[in-house]
């Protein structure tokens, strides 16, 4: 144990990886949870790929000398916000399917845009664009941590302040509006802050880890845990556990920590589905036991009586 602490103290890259693990777990808990609640799990990959288009734009503008100060990360953030805004616009009526379609369309549009720009970017810079999707949690620098940290903080504060509103928007957007809440503003706020966090997290730790950590733990918790707060907390724990195991494994085996973390996160969902199925089966057996023939008889009689009444009234 002391050995491990010694290693951590002596290796700044492990410290940064551990910090990033905590921050990614917070992002998953705050943002992934609500995306899954709203049926928008596709948004994580949509935003990450849209950011790719933005990064391509940034590299093009810098390289061509048109706008030298335009850092690729600015382009990535800009595009992720555009995706969130477009998705929000499509889903103003609160219909999930429309939002999924909007994510899909902006995904395709940004990727096409990225490929389009690749012809105007010198070939040796093209890997930079793809590099956007392949971050590694063990290769973070201080700037990555600061960027990721500030987004995480922003996301955490906003989610703490407005978690009730986010739940209301997810559950009953129309009813919330009718009662006088500015549901539309919270709807956009939630999507845009999530998109920013996803884009920066992708840059830092890579797309695969972000998809897996954003979606799978939230989906797993939502199958089993029966309160919003419980789900958020469970997501944090699952995500952190997967990442820490991933990092630890990468020292023992010759593997990428993201791969292990991604596999563990995905397995958590499969496990949750299985647990739920077993639990449901047990519930049914208990119900069957309670349904004695007497109960069934009364229910049957009532049903017949009601049908009879209905027949009169129609």
């Amino acid at each position, binding site marked *: 144990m002391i050995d491990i602490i010694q290693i951590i103290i002596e290796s700044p890259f492990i410290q940064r990886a551990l910090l990033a693990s905590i921050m990614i777990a917070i992002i998953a808990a705050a943002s992934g949870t609500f995306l899954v609640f709203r049926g928008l799990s596709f948004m994580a990959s949509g935003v990450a790929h849209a950011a790719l288009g933005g990064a391509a734009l940034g590299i093009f503008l810098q390289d061509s000398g048109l706008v030298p100060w335009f850092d690729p990360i600015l382009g990535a953030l800009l595009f992720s916000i555009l995706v969130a805004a477009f998705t929000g616009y499509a889903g103003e009526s609160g219909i999930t399917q429309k939002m999924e379609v909007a994510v899909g369309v902006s995904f395709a549009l940004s990727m096409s845009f990225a490929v389009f720009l690749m012809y105007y970017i010198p070939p040796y810079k093209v890997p930079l664009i793809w590099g956007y999707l392949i971050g590694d949690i063990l290769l973070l620098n201080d700037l990555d941590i600061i960027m990721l940290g500030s987004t995480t903080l922003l996301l955490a504060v906003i989610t703490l302040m407005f978690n009730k509103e986010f739940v*209301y928007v997810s*559950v009953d957007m*129309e009813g919330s509006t009718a*009662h*006088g809440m500015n549901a539309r503003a919270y709807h956009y706020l939630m999507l845009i802050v999530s998109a920013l966090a996803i884009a920066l997290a992708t840059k830092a730790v890579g797309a695969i880890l972000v998809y897996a950590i954003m979606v799978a733990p939230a989906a797993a918790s939502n199958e089993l845990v029966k309160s919003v707060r*419980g789900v958020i907390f469970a997501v944090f724990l699952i995500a952190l556990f997967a990442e820490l195991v991933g990092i630890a494994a990468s020292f023992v085996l010759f593997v990428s920590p993201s791969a292990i973390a991604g596999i563990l996160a995905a397995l958590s969902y499969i496990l949750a589905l299985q647990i739920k199925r077993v639990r449901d089966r047990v519930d049914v057996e208990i119900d069957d036991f309670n349904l004695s023939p007497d109960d069934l008889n009364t229910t049957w009689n009532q049903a017949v009586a009601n049908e009879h009444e209905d027949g009169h009234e129609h």
Partner: protein
Amino acid sequence: MMSTTPLIETHDLAVRYPNGALALHHVSFEIKSPSFMAIIGPNGSGKSTLVKTALGLIKPSRGTIKVMGYDSQKKSGKIRKLVRYVPQRDSIDHTVPVKVKDIVLMGRLLKKLPPRFATSKDIAAAKDALQQVNMEELWERPFPELSGGQRQRVLVARALAGEGSILVLDEPLAGTDVESQDLIVAALGRYHKENDVSIIMITHDLNPIHTLVEDVLLLKNTVIGLGEPCSIMDPELIKKVYGPTARIVEHSGHRYCMTHDSGIDRHD
């Protein structure tokens, strides 16, 4: 109450569905306040659209609609302060693991500003509302686990728990069994009698509430009839709305409307 401001007042209102088809046209009427009002008509007759337009959720393509004197477009904020709304049950998301208490408290907390903390008064009002629909034992139960009828009762409790002089309910009896239906109707009737509130209820079928209702608006994309329940229960009017197979049946002192389309209860 000697109020002269009408509950709802429309002038030559026309509204389109999101797909462009005309949902309502040439709608002009006035309902006094306070009232227990029912909006009836077959599927696709523009009932929900009328209510959503009144709340400023949909923009009319022509004409105006006012609620308590406030224009639904320019003063929707004022209207929404007065309104407690029960949307169609299917518009409520079932994937979020909220508890019954969260849903009922929503009725009160939505009228507050963030951080919307629930005071002991809010909790007492929410519990009392749940009791009125006989659901107080399910306070801690996850809302998505309830049956259709139970969810509907919780949503009605959400409206009862809140504050505001107008209750708007969109098909609160759809997909409920007789027990839930009776409970909801009784709770609404009692609430209207004991409090100075107006109730606007969209329904497929007037029968369960026809003894409570004061004004009935019969819609089929425009106003077909407006009046007391008995005058609306007119064979000619009903035929006009529900088609030639609709009949009015007299049974033990009550008139019942028979249609293919509705019926007293739809069991899901």
